[in-house]
């Protein structure tokens, strides 16, 4: 995908070893992040996040559905990611499917917690309207428009921003019913419920190149990686999920080291992201 000469590879690796990367950043510095909310008016919430040349859109759509029989007190949340061929010609046709699935699964693992819903960024219990009968199904769609590395972090940030932008219509139960009948509900088009998004984690991906690891790798840097660890961390500093990618094995002590570094980086990222989201929301309301 990325065609690099031996000299360029050497330059990238040497730069990382000396803590000065080819775009002038240090190993643990993110590229500037830019957030725009409300980009898809048809969705309940949406956001576009740009991280350097990486550009992603996330949208949230809610539909009324029936909770599953096993978990009558919880709504359903699903995350789908699609890699548009505009991002790279290799995503043409079915070419992007493998990466899309990898990203969707990693995001589900990092943001939605386990099967029980423990550790989820959004409490699935808050989506229930009538226990066992009516609940909201949240569909979160991510779309990669332009790809320059670090898609996972950008998508997670976009989903966080989209969820803060989301307003779910307030639902009133019109008539109580007994037995198996579906209750009638009125969907309000004036009142909206906002989610508490402070608990949604951010994902920090540490990419190992040579003996060192870096955050927010560009696609050139990703082509030189031996392995990468994506760690999702929330505001409280708890680790919410973890994925390791790439072939080479990692020493367990290095993984622990990476986690503590990721925790430190995540604080700065969360602060930056929160202020960007607040600024985007403010300018969205103005227009």
């Amino acid at each position, binding site marked *: 995908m990325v065609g690099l000469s031996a000299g360029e590879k050497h330059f990238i690796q040497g730069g990382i070893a000396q803590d000065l990367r080819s775009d002038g950043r240090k190993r643990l510095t993110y590229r500037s992040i830019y957030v725009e909310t409300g980009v*898809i008016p048809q969705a309940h919430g949406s956001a576009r996040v740009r991280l350097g040349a990486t550009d992603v*859109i996330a949208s949230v759509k809610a539909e009324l559905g029936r909770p599953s029989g096993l978990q009558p007190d919880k709504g359903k949340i699903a995350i789908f990611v699609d890699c548009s061929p505009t991002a790279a010609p290799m995503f043409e046709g079915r070419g992007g499917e493998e990466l899309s699935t990898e990203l969707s699964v990693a995001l589900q693992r990092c943001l939605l917690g386990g099967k029980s819903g423990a550790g989820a960024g959004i409490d699935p219990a808050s989506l229930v309207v009538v226990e066992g009968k009516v609940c909201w199904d949240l*569909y979160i769609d991510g*779309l990669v428009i332009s790809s320059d590395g670090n898609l996972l972090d950008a998508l997670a940030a976009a989903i966080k921003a989209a969820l803060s932008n989301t307003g779910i219509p307030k639902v009133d139960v019109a008539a109580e019913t007994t037995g198996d009948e579906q209750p009638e509900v009125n969907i309000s088009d004036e009142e909206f419920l906002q989610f508490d998004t402070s608990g949604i984690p951010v994902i920090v991906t540490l990419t190992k190149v040579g003996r060192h690891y870096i955050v927010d790798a560009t696609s050139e840097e990703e082509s030189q990686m031996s392995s990468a660890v994506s760690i999702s961390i929330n505001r409280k500093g708890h680790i919410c999920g973890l994925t390791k990618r790439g072939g080479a094995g990692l020493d367990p002590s290095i993984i622990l080291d990476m986690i503590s570094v990721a925790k430190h980086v995540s604080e700065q990222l969360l602060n930056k992201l929160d202020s960007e989201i607040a600024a985007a929301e403010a300018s969205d309301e103005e227009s």
Partner: protein
Amino acid sequence: MEYVSPEGLLLDGRRPMEMRQLRAEIGTVAKADGSAVFEMGNTKVIAAVYGPREVQNRSQQMSDQALVRCEYSMANFSTGDRMRKPKGDRRSTEISLVIRQTMEACILTHLMPRSQIDIFVQVLQADVGTRSACINAASLALADAGIPMRDIVTSCSAGYLNSTPLLDLNYVEDSAGGADVTVGILPKLDKVTLLQMDAKLPLDIFENVMGLAIEGCKAVANYIREILLENTKQLEYRRGL
């Protein structure tokens, strides 16, 4: 239902000869050779162009001209109700083909033998006229990529409702069931490269409606020219010329 009020206004306040709002932006996909966003009313599409580059599939290589390929895709969230369609359904295959044929007609393919040009269009918001919006976006993206072209293809649609020809239908007007004529033209050469219509129309009215759509295409062409000129001026400024 009344789609044209006695005062001659449409439901969304436009006049029958008035287009939906246009907006375009060049260079939105940093990694592509050329890219553009094009909005017509609520329809919003992104186009990206890669190439001319080496032909990926050797058996498709042509020794006398460039290979032009196009893929149209819709985002899951682009329609009112969320959809999850597999890629490559019949509608998108047809639109891909239409865009490819239209663009192929204006690219000077004989100047770039043994190479390939990829055009990818992604619909972010689908109202009516994704076809026209995609062609306009693709034109802008090709121009941004610096690919030699005979002219800039522009496209626009027109319809006929309540015995009034309407320019650039919106969703409500399109669902009303009148005819929908989509035209693509080469504005400088004054040639029609794309013409599609559904439903039926008497011949004399068809002439009017098609004339209106061509006028629309010319208005789009003027707008695209403005955007390209502005973009070139900015590039010039950044180079310090």
